């Protein structure tokens, strides 16, 4: 092998004289990057912490907002799908129509009705409600409270829970007994917490015995601050001619059909005289509140992502400085600058992917944990946890650009002489 061939650089641009170029398979590149990552597992984990927190916050925020909105919609659907409210149609002219007193009985015969109850609003004029017979100048004892009459079935229809005492029944109504049931807010205002000592209240000049206090209702929240009397009392004392509305609790899915059947059941000759209503939708207001929170958390997530990216860039740079000897060695073993840059890029990208996986897992755990605590159904868009590692990888890639270029620019022999 005597040197006879002498290709000058000017002769042929890419010297093709049988010298095969260096190369590296993708598999080897991946192996080297992963090995670099796991050389110091503790440091790698600390490095990706920022990315983990950032992506975790994003996944948790997106998951929780979807879960919460699903909850609101779901709850609203369940309640609204099982409720109809029947009132007299005010648009209808002609002879004054009335909701019959026996509406609960008539509607109770229909299939799908869980409970139907009359609610009658009573106009008590300027009469105030008071629990104390003594007029105390130091303290306000008289309050303007709503007074309504309820048929016994109404409490079932609004899904009322009783805190103490008993509810109104048919017997009390038939005898028009002077008894009342208080909504929880009304009871608090009047200072009544117990009924075993038979407390009395007065509405204007009339005196009533409190026999029960509600704990809560699921519909008709006006009942919470109301004084509820019997229908008999409403008729005899306040000359109420007919109930204001009928609240019907239906079985799931029965409401649309019952909305058609109920007017006929109430008055077969003139069903058009009634109006069927469902409660107002509370959805939009809540969504606006939720949107504000989302923006805050997404911004927090974004900031931690930025911090995470800086963390990765910083540690990768330190790692390049520490591994000067290794870089020199790799160059001597046949690595080109490009190989070195690719290895460090891949290492930082892998850190980002790792952060994305850990962050997505943490975020999902948060969503599931909060849902468990609130007894919600966790809902997460399937793309969110899958995109997190991708986003992490891109962040890692960007963070690794500068360190990788620094590594590629190192002069091999100086790197080798620099030490281990």
């Amino acid at each position: 092998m005597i040197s006879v061939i002498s290709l000058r650089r000017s002769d042929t641009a890419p010297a093709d004289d049988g010298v095969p170029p260096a190369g590296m398979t993708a598999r080897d590149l991946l192996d080297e990057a992963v090995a670099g990552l796991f050389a110091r597992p503790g440091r790698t984990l600390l490095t990706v912490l920022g990315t983990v927190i950032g992506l975790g916050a994003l996944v948790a925020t997106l998951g929780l907002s979807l879960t919460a909105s699903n909850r609101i919609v779901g709850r609203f659907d369940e309640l609204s799908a099982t409720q109809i409210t029947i009132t007299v149609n005010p648009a209808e002219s002609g002879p004054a129509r009335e909701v019959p007193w026996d509406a609960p009985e008539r509607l109770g015969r229909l299939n799908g009705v869980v409970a139907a109850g009359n609610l009658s609003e009573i106009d008590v004029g300027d009469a105030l409600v008071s629990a104390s017979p003594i007029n105390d100048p130091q303290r306000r004892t008289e309050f303007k409270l709503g007074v309504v009459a309820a048929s016994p079935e109404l409490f079932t229809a609004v899904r009322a829970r009783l805190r103490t005492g008993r509810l109104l029944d048919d017997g009390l109504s038939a005898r028009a007994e002077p008894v009342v049931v208080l909504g929880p807010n009304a009871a608090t205002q009047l200072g009544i917490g117990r009924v075993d000592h038979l407390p009395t209240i007065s509405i204007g000049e009339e005196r009533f015995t409190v026999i029960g206090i509600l704990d809560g209702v699921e519909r008709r929240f006006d009942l919470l601050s109301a004084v509820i009397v019997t229908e008999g009392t409403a008729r005899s004392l306040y000359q109420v001619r007919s109930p204001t509305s009928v609240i019907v609790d239906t079985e799931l899915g029965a409401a649309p059909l019952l909305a058609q059947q109920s007017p006929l059941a109430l008055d077969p000759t003139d069903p058009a005289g009634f109006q069927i209503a469902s409660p107002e939708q509370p959805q939009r207001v809540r969504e606006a509140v939720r949107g504000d929170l989302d923006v805050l958390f997404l911004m927090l997530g974004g900031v931690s992502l930025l911090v995470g990216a800086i963390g990765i860039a910083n540690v990768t740079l330190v790692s390049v400085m520490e591994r000067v000897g290794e870089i020199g060695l790799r160059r001597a073993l046949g690595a080109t600058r490009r190989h070195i840059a690719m290895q460090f890029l891949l290492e930082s990208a892998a850190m980002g992917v790792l952060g994305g996986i850990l962050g997505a897992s943490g975020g999902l755990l948060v969503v599931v944990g909060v849902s468990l605590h609130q007894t919600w159904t966790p809902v997460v868009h399937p793309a969110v946890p899958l995109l997190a590692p991708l986003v992490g990888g891109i962040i890692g890639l960007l963070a690794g650009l500068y360190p990788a270029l620094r590594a590629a620019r190192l002069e091999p022999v100086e790197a080798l002489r620099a030490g281990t």
Partner: protein
Amino acid sequence: MGAELIVLDGVTRRYGAASPVVALRGANLRVCSGEWLAIVGPSGSGKSTLLNIIGCLDRPDGGTYHFDGIDVAALSDRQRAGLRSRRLGFVFQAFHLLAHRTVAENVMLAEVYGLRPRAGRRERALAALAAMGLGDRADYLPTRLSGGERQRVAIARSLVNEPALLLCDEPTGNLDSQTTATILEILGDLHDRGLTIVTITHEPEVAARAQRRVRIVDGELRGAA
């Protein structure tokens, strides 16, 4: 004496653009196949520049360098890298073993950039280690080895690709005299089996083992053929 493996003709290398420092001026050097040459010189004399150029890590500014008949200056970066991975073996003063990889993995690293198949890579590494008497250390981490053992791992790594030239940069600089003797023994053995070796050193004891010595002072080679 075999054919000429290394031919340097008037190789010059300057650093810096405005007021360049000449690290190597008009170096002429011929190393034949199977020869053992020692390059001796104080620090700052241009030894590392020469190593850079002979090791195909850098290109000369002037003059020509032929390695095994190939004009290195005319090669692309990737081709020079290919040359390093397939035809050159490096041994360094600081060993440069990766601390977190096992001895066998360190040796296997030599094949990564030459596109050699993964199949049989570990077997070839184990064979190279066995030849250095380190067959039982394959799964150790380098941190558990003595300095001499580490340098033997490095030599095993440099030989896996069966290079045409072994380039040793102060191979015994970090070793005590007894271990130095062992390493020199190994190098002598390799030389006896026909491997071309170029050793860069400032230790007379190491230089004495080579067949031929050249001195480099202030970027000029003296006593070179």
